């Protein structure tokens, strides 16, 4: 009985490791296969979240089912990853656009002011402060 349980636990842990590894691999393949920097940004920002997520879930399951203790660090890593990944992607996107994309290649912002990369923000008035 106990034997069966630990086998099941190991299978679960292994399953999530494989899923995580697969998506991390896809993220890296995307970096090579896609054409320009803006497209390449899509692969690591998304594929990697499930890649890392899979490894973290299997780590939590391992501690929960095999070592019999609850581990929260994985949830924190997930949280920090979700907070930082979009910001990194945004920095890369902006740097790339500043360098390689001219403002006429972009659609209009539909506002009085253009995109923040090329235009200054409106003067702060006392009201909007």
């Amino acid at each position: 009985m106990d034997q069966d349980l630990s086998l099941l636990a190991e299978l679960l842990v292994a399953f999530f490791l494989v899923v995580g590894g697969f998506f991390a691999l896809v993220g890296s393949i995307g970096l090579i296969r896609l054409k320009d920097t803006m497209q390449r940004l899509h692969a690591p920002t998304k594929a990697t979240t499930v890649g890392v997520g899979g490894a973290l879930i299997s780590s939590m399951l391992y501690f929960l089912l095999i070592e019999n203790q609850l581990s929260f660090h994985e949830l924190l890593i997930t949280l920090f990853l979700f907070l930082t990944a979009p910001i990194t992607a945004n920095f890369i996107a902006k740097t790339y656009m500043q360098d390689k994309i001219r403002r006429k290649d972009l659609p209009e912002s539909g506002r009085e002011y253009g995109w923040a990369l090329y235009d200054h923000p409106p003067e702060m008035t006392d009201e909007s402060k």
Partner: protein
Amino acid sequence: MLRRVFPHPILSLTLVIVWLMLVNKVTPGNLFLGVVFGIVIPVMTAPYWPNRPALRAPLMAAEYALVVLWDIIVANFEVAAIVLFKRHDKIRSQWVVVPLELRSPEAITVLAGTITMTPGTVSATLAADGGSLLVHALDTDDPDAVRDEIKTRYERRLMEIFR
């Protein structure tokens, strides 16, 4: 009285929970230390973040988190399929302009982050007055549909959360 000690109850609670997760062991001592952090840190950081938005609808925020989590998983499969099986000259990337109704900087930050993490879109930049968001879509025929989905699925919920 309670309002004075905890001007931002949700921020304090988050700090307590994050602290307990960091030490990875729930003991009375750790809980006490967490509560101390929950009281002291919001007070200490208040000068740097004067107009903290109040979270109006915590349940709505939880629903939002679940929707986003689900979309992230879906996004992974979609992007994986595009990366692995689509001829790269057939991938039609486009810019999408999303006019924003959200005004609070925190809400716009959450929206931009969500867009980056979810199906086939990365947020690139804001209009200089913060009134619209430029989004790069990896593969789409219909930029208007992408824009409408962002507006109905995410922005509508954020409007209610950060009212």
